């Protein structure tokens, strides 16, 4: 499928377009928001500012330390996006490489790589993340690393399966008949053809990564100096915003996570329908 055809198909898919628009809005907020709205999590408000409901001064009210919830959201958007995207990048890089090499080379390499993948697939990711995060310390790069390193196994399996189909194609045989090296074939034939699948998968993995980040932060493993939406939720839950019925405190960050993850999920689903012709609507 050619690129412009691909875009045309994507534009025809309502889910995809809605998801994409939502994502663009979030990216704009993450890019420009922090430039307009200044937020420092270390600066606490006055006693009178604690847990105020939404007002003109504080659009979404204040938290238990008197900080502006709206400003925290804007600042958090950047953290959530960066962590989600960066962690996904690590996952996809490992997953795609392992999947392609495992599937294409086959034999012993395949066996070894797949057994390693199996181990990463069964390691309970959330406890592992918690342990790793506790071990490495709560800084944003560690969180990215932890999410990335625990999230690649599924991708590796999917990419491997697709590579197995791809490598039986006659143009691979043709390439070999001219004396092409394995790397040449992987780069020129396998990768371009598994790419659409990798791309659709990337989008879905990003959604998962963002959820993972939120969960980690909610459980208190987040980077407090760079608070994400999950961190805000953590403080909201710990401070008893729930029993205080401070809806403005715990609702907005959750809604943001939901919308951002939904944006990626919608796009991922749309891409899946385009990439996988069997799902395509007739």
């Amino acid at each position: 499928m050619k690129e412009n055809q691909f875009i045309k198909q994507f534009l025809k898919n309502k889910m995809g377009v809605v998801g994409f628009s939502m994502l663009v809005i979030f990216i704009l907020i993450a890019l420009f928001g922090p430039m307009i709205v200044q937020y420092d999590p270390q600066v606490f408000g006055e006693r009178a500012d604690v847990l105020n409901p939404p007002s003109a001064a504080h659009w979404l009210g204040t938290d238990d330390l008197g900080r502006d919830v709206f400003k925290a959201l804007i600042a958090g958007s950047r953290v959530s996006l960066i962590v989600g995207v960066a962690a996904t990048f690590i996952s996809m890089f490992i997953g795609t490489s392992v999947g392609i090499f495992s599937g294409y080379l086959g034999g012993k390499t395949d066996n070894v790589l797949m057994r390693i993948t199996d181990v990463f697939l069964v390691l309970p990711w959330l406890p592992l993340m918690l342990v790793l995060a506790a071990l490495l310390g709560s800084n944003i790069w560690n969180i990215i690393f932890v999410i990335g390193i625990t999230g690649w196994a599924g991708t590796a399996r999917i990419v491997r399966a697709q590579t197995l189909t791809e490598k039986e194609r006659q143009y691979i045989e043709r390439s070999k008949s001219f004396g092409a090296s394995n790397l040449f074939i992987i780069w020129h034939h396998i990768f371009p053809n598994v790419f659409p699948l990798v791309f659709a998968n990337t989008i879905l993995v990003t959604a998962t990564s963002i959820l993972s980040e939120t969960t980690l932060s909610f459980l208190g493993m987040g980077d407090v100096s760079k608070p994400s939406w999950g961190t805000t939720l953590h403080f909201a839950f710990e401070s008893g915003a729930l029993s205080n019925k401070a809806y403005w405190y715990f609702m907005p960050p959750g809604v943001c996570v939901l919308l951002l993850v939904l944006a990626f999920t919608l796009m991922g689903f749309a891409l899946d329908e385009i990439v996988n012709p069997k799902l395509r609507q007739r």
Partner: protein
Amino acid sequence: MDALIELKNVTVKFPVKPSFIDVLKGKPQRVVHAVNGVDLTVMPGEIIALVGESGSGKTTLGKAINALHPSEVVGGTICFEGEPIFGTDGKLKPGYREKVAMIFQDPYQSLNPKQTIEKIVAEPLMIQQKNLSRDKMRASVVTALEQAGLTPGESFLNRYPHELSGGQRQRVVIAGALIVKPKLIIADEPVSMLDVSIRSEILKLLMELRERQQIAYLFITHDIALAWAIADKIAVMYLGTILEYGSAENVIQSPKNPYTQALIEIMPKMKMRRSEKRALLTGEMPDPIDLPKGCVFQSRCPRAADGCMHEKPKLTLVGEAHYSVCECQLEEMRVNE
């Protein structure tokens, strides 16, 4: 004239991937005998048709000549212009791949859908002559495309396979083979996936190329009538073994081997024959893992005798430049009135 390619007792044996339990039990390694001792000579500019059903080992043999199998599964010797293609170190002699190209069966599958025609045709050069400049490469691609009948060549460079018809795609495949200026093209069922009405167009192109560039062909096909139409010599393969070999006229007009006779017998004659009785082989080709002891064709041969079960018959001269492993006549044969 010296032979272009000479095969001596070529075998191809694929080890069967053993199951986990078999390894534990220490069962002996099982082997698929895909090609069993084939002798074959191709002269420059000659067309040899390799005819057989699926599973006969014809494609495996073609790939062996194209050095597509790892050298350890291939036995015997393959010589190109008098020199073995593998050195003593088991490595393919450099330059061989520029002399022998292969065309594959399915024009829809043998082109990468993500690549432009230019890239597809240029691929052999990208692999074999890495230092070639972009312009020179493009010029070669255009020449090759035009030799393959896609004119003007420039207009195809930036198109994608899905924009072309089946016939055009197969021409692209041929252009991709021509670009290395080969002396031998191994053509694996090059027209069987195409509509009948355009097949001959491709065949005609292949024949013209032979006239102009002295290219020899090893033409792999299941269609013995097609072999008859185009080949100088025909080799009939069954279960990895050549059962009959000779000039097209000899093999088709006076077939000596019962299998060849049966193959010719079932070919369409373009006339009503519903009420006629005919000799039809029963069953299917046996598994190439456990080869029968004697003649490979014994299990389906209506004329199989005791001797066929025990001794492996050899190709022997049965006529002028005409070899067969046996000389039995099937009954009810009505070859070529």
